[in-house]
């Protein structure tokens, strides 16, 4: 029998699937929502107006009564902001096939909890008690989901990736395109070194311990490229066993959560600047959502604790450049390369498949395009302004309100991580994959630290200023 390639019916079906993806993948919804917000904000700012009214958030407070007064004074804005998010994410949920009524109801609970966390982060003593919103969100979420549990309807709104990807697209508006181009070579070099070494260490350790090659490749990509997303992408490309995919996912989640706490803490102890710490977290965290939680935590620390040099938002910016541009965008190439190796070198599974260059696009994390376009758009809008004009006009009218919206989106995501983490799922992890992955984690963390603090430290410190 011949294969399906070249058959017109299959080609038509594939094209129809590509169009459906525009409404049925959260990457595309992150673009529609995130880029839509940036376009509207830029249009209003160009016309002398701003989205600042709806981009409301708690401000610094000392006494609880102050926070209460703030919320009361801006109550209508908070209701409008809820309406905006609920409409946008509700549309996405409906297109993704979720129950939209249940989604809006559960999103209401998520919004209120996020407002509480946002407010807590603005407490003048929050840094003193280490009450960083991402960490508190994670701890409270994990405690609730692993003790009392959640009703099924409440789980509808826990779409970590949708919120995080939307936040990353909006974040693009705060990063000039020129900065991306300037940082690009260093980012790709540092991330490339760490990804290749980490993959090799995990793969060789795993196969040395007698694990299946497909399992080893799935574990290796999960640790080296983009966490859970990397693991499922390569698992499909090499046709890994389902139970192996489950173990790889559990290992990535386990270590990603450990690193959310460990990386900011160690960075603080080592006195790393925000730029260096962000680059290290971007190199050594496993998932976008977890890494943003760690980077945002370090940004909050830099805001409230003396001794950390660099602008607070540099940790998130350096992380995003390293993780998204340095690691995430290469997943299609990893999947293609491993698919070729699996097809030509490894023992057959009885399932046939043909490696194709189209794999690179099919698995490309599309939300990255929104991130770059948002950056290009705001760079173009502010291109005629000098730094003084930028600070006086573009920052308060355009960039700052978008930063507030992005923080909301990220915090929805951080809370959702905690609420979807189930510790019992770690019980399925066995020793050999745990050892292989852990060896890779150690090499990854140390190599990432060395590159960030010794080899490229000048670059990252400069970026933080």
């Amino acid at each position, binding site marked *: 029998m*011949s294969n399906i390639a070249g058959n017109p019916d299959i080609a038509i*079906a594939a094209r129809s699937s590509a169009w459906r993806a525009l409404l049925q993948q*959260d*990457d595309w919804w992150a673009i529609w929502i995130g880029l839509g917000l940036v376009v509207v904000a830029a249009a209003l700012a160009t016309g002398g107006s701003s989205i600042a009214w709806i981009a409301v958030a708690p401000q610094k407070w000392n006494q609880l009564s102050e926070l209460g007064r703030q919320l009361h004074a801006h109550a209508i804005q908070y209701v409008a902001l809820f309406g905006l998010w609920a409409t946008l994410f509700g549309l996405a949920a409906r297109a993704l096939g979720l129950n939209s009524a249940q989604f809006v109801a559960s999103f209401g609970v998520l919004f209120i909890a996020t407002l509480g966390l946002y407010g807590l982060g603005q407490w003048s003593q929050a840094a003193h008690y280490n009450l960083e919103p991402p960490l508190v969100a994670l701890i409270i979420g994990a405690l609730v989901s692993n003790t009392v549990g959640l009703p099924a309807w409440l789980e509808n709104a826990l*779409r970590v990736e949708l919120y995080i990807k939307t936040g990353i697209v909006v974040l693009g508006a705060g990063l000039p395109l020129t900065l991306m181009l300037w940082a690009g070579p260093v980012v790709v070099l540092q991330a490339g070194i760490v990804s290749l070494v980490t993959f090799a260490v995990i793969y060789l350790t795993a196969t040395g311990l007698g694990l299946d090659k497909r399992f080893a490749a799935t574990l290796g990509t999960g640790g080296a490229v983009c966490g*859970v*997303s990397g693991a499922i*992408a390569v698992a499909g490309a090499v046709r890994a066993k389902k139970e192996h995919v489950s173990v790889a996912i559990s290992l990535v989640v386990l270590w990603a959560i450990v690193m959310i706490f460990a990386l900011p803490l160690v960075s603080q102890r080592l006195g790393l600047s925000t730029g260096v710490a962000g680059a290290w977290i971007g190199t050594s965290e496993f998932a976008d959502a977890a890494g943003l939680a760690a980077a945002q935590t370090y940004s909050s620390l830099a805001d409230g604790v003396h001794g950390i040099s660099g602008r607070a938002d540099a940790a998130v910016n350096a992380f995003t450049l390293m993780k998204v541009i340095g690691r995430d965008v290469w997943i299609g190439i990893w999947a293609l390369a491993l698919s070729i190796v699996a097809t030509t070198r490894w023992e057959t599974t009885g*399932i046939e*498949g043909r490696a194709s260059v189209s794999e690179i696009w099919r698995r490309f994390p599309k939300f990255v395009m929104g991130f770059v376009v948002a950056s290009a758009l705001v760079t173009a809008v502010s291109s005629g302004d000098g730094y003084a004009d930028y600070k006086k006009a573009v920052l308060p009218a355009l960039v700052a309100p978008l930063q507030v919206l992005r923080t909301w989106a990220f915090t929805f995501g951080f809370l959702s991580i905690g609420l979807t983490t189930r510790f019992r799922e770690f019980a399925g992890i066995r020793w050999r994959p745990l050892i292989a992955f852990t060896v890779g984690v150690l090499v990854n963390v140390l190599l990432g630290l060395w590159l960030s603090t010794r080899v490229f430290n000048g670059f990252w410190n400069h970026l933080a200023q």
Partner: protein
Amino acid sequence: MAFGTIWLSSSVGELGLMCPCALCRYFESGARELEAKLPGLKCLSSGYAAVRADDGICGKRDRHVAASSTCADYEEL
């Protein structure tokens, strides 16, 4: 939808081509179903993520496979 699938499957079969997993009764690629079968997927990724492309789980061989894959165990929907 079902008619289209049957028609597509028939035309593939008539041409003597090997039917892809996408048209097989053992293939499960729904995002929600995948999130239910792979605990933890929803925590730091998503069944709706672009990186997953159109992969799914083969219930017969218990493997994560691309929709365009083929095998001898194919059974029509």
